[in-house]
């Protein structure tokens, strides 16, 4: 699992500087760095092919769409995309996974895409406020869980361990969704955490635990389950009070709005099973 964590960080690392430069007028490039899509084709071919396949919006569910989705959805959406293509022959779904905020920036900079799935409503609001989409649907929830190295060497039992400076704990930075969720949980619990690091994303936080460099990290339930036996999960009651909502929306600029709408419908319908198997909650 560390490999996947690393890969995700790599993707983000590559995206980071490119996004900075991209904002200076090279937005298309940032889209290119999306990397993994199960179709195996580069993401640039997605929108181009989509344009060719259906030059105008039509009611028919076929052709290519490009989906921008939060990094935490990488495994589940890849599976859902395959299922969708089977259910609707003639369609092809290309994914670009990344940090929700980065993806929102790309959408607002005019990146050619059809669907946007965010890891929180705050980020979705950036896109809807800019008028690039409206009426997002909630399709999954995620709650926080404590990830500890196998065997839980530091004997972490709950949130209060994050206030114990003799234990090396890591949190997500408040600027990223898992970090803002963590902040709410600690406020509710009345605990002031003393982490050694505010990680730039959830996978970076997870890597620290997988490498046994951190005694505990506060991450999403889905991250703990996808990490397999590299980490163990420790649940805590306050988690249920801060539920992260995942919204999805078809983008206004989509050139294949029928298929985009169908994909959104598929995620909220048949896709639920895949999501729940991975540890997501129902909306």
């Amino acid at each position, binding site marked *: 699992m560390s490999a996947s964590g690393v890969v995700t960080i790599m993707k983000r690392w590559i995206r980071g500087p490119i996004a900075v430069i991209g904002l200076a007028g090279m937005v298309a490039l940032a889209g290119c760095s999306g990397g993994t899509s199960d179709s195996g084709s580069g993401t640039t071919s997605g929108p181009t092919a989509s344009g060719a396949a259906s030059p105008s919006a039509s009611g028919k569910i076929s052709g290519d769409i490009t989906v921008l989705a939060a990094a935490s959805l990488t495994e589940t959406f890849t599976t859902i995309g395959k299922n969708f293509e089977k259910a609707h022959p003639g369609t092809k779904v290309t994914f670009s996974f990344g940090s929700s905020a980065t993806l929102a920036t790309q959408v607002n900079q005019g990146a050619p895409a059809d669907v946007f799935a965010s890891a929180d409503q705050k980020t979705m609001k950036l896109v809807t406020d800019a008028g690039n989409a409206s009426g997002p649907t909630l399709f999954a929830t995620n709650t926080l869980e404590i990830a500890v190295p196998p065997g839980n060497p530091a004997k972490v039992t709950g949130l209060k361990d994050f206030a114990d400076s003799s234990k090396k704990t890591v949190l997500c930075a408040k600027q990223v969704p898992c970090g803002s969720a963590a902040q709410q949980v600690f406020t509710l619990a009345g605990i002031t955490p003393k982490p050694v690091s505010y990680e*730039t994303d959830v996978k970076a936080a997870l890597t620290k635990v997988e490498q046994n460099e951190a005694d505990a990290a506060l991450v999403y339930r889905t991250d703990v389950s996808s990490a397999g036996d590299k980490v163990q999960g420790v649940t805590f009651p306050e988690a249920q009070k801060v539920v992260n909502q995942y919204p999805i929306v078809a983008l206004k600029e989509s050139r294949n709005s029928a298929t985009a709408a169908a994909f959104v419908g598929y995620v909220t319908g048949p896709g639920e099973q895949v999501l729940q198997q991975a540890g997501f909650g129902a909306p």
Partner: protein
Amino acid sequence: MSRGAGAGRAAGLPAVLITPAMIGLAFLVLPLVGLLVRAPWSRTGAILAGSDAWPALRLSLITSTAAAVLALVLGVPLAWFLARPQGRFRSALRALITVPLVLPPVVGGVALFTVLGRSGILGHPLYQLTGFAFPFTPYAVVLSQTFVALPYLVLSVEGALRAADRRYEDAAQTLGARPAVVFWRVTLPLIGPGVAAGAVLAWARALGEFGATITFAGNFPGTTQTMPLAVYLALETDPDAALLLSVLLLAVSIAVLALLRDRWVRQW
């Protein structure tokens, strides 16, 4: 007469070179211009006052300088061993040294864990003995930066060593200089420009380091959060602020390089 020859040469600039050179220049400069144009100058005060920028900038300058110094201390002798003794394993050694150049820095960070982390080969006994572990400390930042920056220094110093006229070293020996004295008083000054160039490259690479740092050192304001990490996080919530911080990092690094150039690279 010499002026005439010079003018003749200038007139003969090869067009074949001009076009790609111009495109190359534009490719490097235009994104920077874009940064400058798009940076939210009107919000400068607010962004810089309310952000982690200053501690991050301070940490970046300190750690990258430390990394460049560490790279010098380790890299110059390493370059010497690559350039001088006639060894059979030299090309293998050089290949090993260039590994960090091609390794994604994030993987480099994980690799550092395996050696210097709390459970690493060397890190574990250190942790057992002293309770000290590198990750999440500024030392880890320096080590991450050194890891990625060292090859730049080694390769450029090695090139300088190969290009240097070794007969000067012979001359120094016949004047009573032991090998160590030859190295300090003759070899090193002779390859000074190469060493300076390598150190500047290493410093610049260390200053921009992100992947290995976030993996091996983590991100804590004032302790391990360097400027690139701060820029990355700012990008999550306030892309405009990220632009401005990038410009700040650029400006500071250009100023430092210009200062260095005037102060002592000119000497050679």
